[in-house]
Each structure stands twice: as structure tokens, then as C-alpha cells.
């Protein structure tokens, strides 16, 4: 089970700060992130890409799930 970061309901830049910290600290190859707004989705996506992680986005009931894979 991949590590999951729940950023639902957090306003930017909090999701980006949390995800960046996690990406820099994690030993995992895959990380899952939940966000509830399109702004957070795009910002996390951009931040992860900047740190060379591949990003897939799925829609969920209350927002988006981002699957980040170390590339």
C-alpha cells in the first residue's frame, strides 16, 4: 500500500508544501495524494513534476487522487 497524503480541504500552498516535504523524505517509489480542488491538483502536479516525479490524476467522489511515481 503506497503512502497516502490527504490534502483535501487544505488551501494552497499547504498541499504543495506537504507533498514536497513527503517527496523529499520518502523512501517509497510511489505516493498517493488526495486533493479537493483543481487548483491544488494542478499545483501539486507541477511541484511533483519539478522534482522529477511522474503524475497520474484520477477523479474521485470529492476531488482528485494523484498517483506520483518516481521516474
Amino acid at each position, binding site marked *: 500500500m503506497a503512502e*497516502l497524503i490527504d490534502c483535501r480541504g487544505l488551501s494552497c500552498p499547504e498541499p504543495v508544501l506537504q507533498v514536497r516535504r513527503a517527496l523529499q523524505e520518502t523512501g517509497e517509489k510511489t505516493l498517493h495524494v488526495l486533493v479537493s480542488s483543481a487548483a491544488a491538483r494542478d499545483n501539486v502536479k507541477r511541484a511533483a513534476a519539478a522534482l522529477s516525479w511522474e503524475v497520474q490524476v484520477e477523479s474521485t467522489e470529492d476531488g482528485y487522487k494523484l498517483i506520483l511515481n518516481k521516474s
Partner: protein
Amino acid sequence: MKEKAAIIIAGVVLGLAALLLAWYGNPANMGFCIACFLRDIAGGLGLHRAEAVQYLRPEIAGLVLGAFFAALAAREFKAVGGSSPLLRFLLGLLMMVGALTFLGCPLRMILRLAGGDWNALVALPGYVLGIWVGTLFLRKGYSLGRSGPQGALNGWVAPVTALILPLLLVAAPALIFTSETGPGSMRAPLALSLGIGLLVGVAIQRTRLCTMGAIRDLILFREAQLFLGVFSIFVVVLVGNLILGKFNPGFIDQPVAHSDGLWNFLGMAVVGLGAVLAGGCPLRQLVLSGEGNSDAWFTVLGMIAGGAMMHNFGLAASAAGTTPAGRYAVIIALVLLLVIGAAHSGAAMARRSSPAEAAGSQSKA
């Protein structure tokens, strides 16, 4: 690359909007100003009686409605809220203390800069300083807590209110206040103001342009996406002013401005810090309101209340400069912002990322 092009276009739209509105009657260097216009709306509703600054500025209504339609079309409209609404009201009010000391929101600071008003050049480092202090809190885990889904009506309050304001102008001018002299009497035609507001609302909703985010993201992430948008506002307005002969460099006798340097600096520091703590500059708060974010609308209501307070208590600055009481208000605002920032850093973060909560959300997902 597409995102970069989009945000530059949004900046160009906003820059052209400001030029056009000032050309067609809005006060100089004030084609589009969120703080000034919310202050005018407070006056238009009779919440303060400063006769020179009363008008239900249709640009604000257009902005909220434009964001609303753009969000609907993109399926991004969602009623959310419940993240410390009362503190957000206070943050909005405090931002107005700073803005009405400097005489403008961050957007107008850019417009003033592009018009050659060097007082804005003194205010800009204050804004950056305020934002930098805010990022220190963010790094320590500052958060006002999570928002959550709300009943749809919560999201409709802002756009419906925005619809009613211009209707009042047309249908019930006797109920409201409209300046006959001063900045409030200087206005572009209603339809133009409303239409341009709508366009700007769409552009900003699509790109999430924010004058605070521009600088915050540079400091936090060395990320220049939003900055590109804000910088293009400046370039467009500067070039436009040069062409139109409206570029008048100097400190003295600038339109709706004063040269009280220290307080211009501190005023914008208040706005910068307040905007980080509220998660968006005044402009962005209006756009978020249109997207259904009721927390952002609380911030806007706080700004309107702040505008009323600044004029009712004689705290607002004017072309003549700041007032003694207004200077105290700026200091008090700074202290309150630091208290809010400190109180919501650290501990809040630890609580949020507790293993129990993470496990709970995992099973829900």
C-alpha cells in the same frame, strides 16, 4: 508551456482592463483596484458616509460572476467552506487597514508603479516583506484548518449578491449612495465596467493569478508561474501609459496617493502578511468566492467591513497623508496578524498529520 502562455494572457487581459477602465472614467492609476472598489461598495451601501468614495463598483460584481461562470463551465464550481471563517473575516478586515493606509490593494500598487508613482516603489518591498514573514509561518505548518463540502446554497450567496449590486444601481438608485464628487464619482460606464469585470473574472479563474501567490511561490518554491502573470500586468500597463501619455514619474501629486513612505511600506506589509494567512490577495478572494468558496466570501465581507471601519473611525489615509489613529491601526493590524500566524503554526500541523487521521482518510479513499 501552455500554462505559462495562459497566465501571461490573463495578465495582459487584466492590464488592458485597467488601462481601458481608467481611460473611460475610473480614477487615474485605479482602473481596477479591489480594495478601493470594495471601500466604494461599502460607501454605496451606506456602511460609511465618506461622500467622495461611494459607488457600487460593477467591476467587482463582474469579477465574481465571471469567476462563477468560468468555474461552472469547467465543472470546478463547488460549495466549500468551514476553514476558520471568522478568522478569515478578520484577515479581510486587517488587509483593508493596510490597503487603505497605502491607498490601494496590491493590484493597484502594480498599476501605480506602472504609472510612475514611486510611492508604490516604497510600498512594494513592504509587500514582499509581509509575504516573506507569511512564508515563515507556512514553513512552520501554518494552516487555518481544512474546509469541507457544504450545501450548494453556501456557494451561491456570493454570485447572487454580485448579481444584485448592479441591479441596485439601475433599478433602485434612491436606496444606495453614489458619489457626486471625488474618486467615487469617477467611473467608467456601467456596462463596460461590468463586462470587463466579467472577462477578468474568467481569465483569473482559469489561471488562478494572484499577486500574493506570485511572490510567495518565488520565495517558497523558486516557482515563477504566477509571477509571470503579475509581471505581464505591469508591462502592459507601463507600455500603455507610455503610449497614452499617462506615465508621470515622481513621488509628489500622484493621483489618489500620498508620500508618507514609512506608512506606505508598513501598510503593504500588512496586506502581504494578511494575504498569505488568508491564502490569497484581495483579487483572488473575489475569484474564489465566485467558485463557491464561502470562506473566501467571509474574507471579502471582512474587507467591506474594514473599508467601512477605516472611514467611519477616520483611520483611512487620503491624498493629504495618514492619520495618527490610522497609524496605530496599522501597528495593531500587524500585531494581530503575527498572533494569528503564530497561533495557527506548528501545533495545527502536528494535529493534521496525526497517523489516526491519515488512516481514517485512507479507508475512505
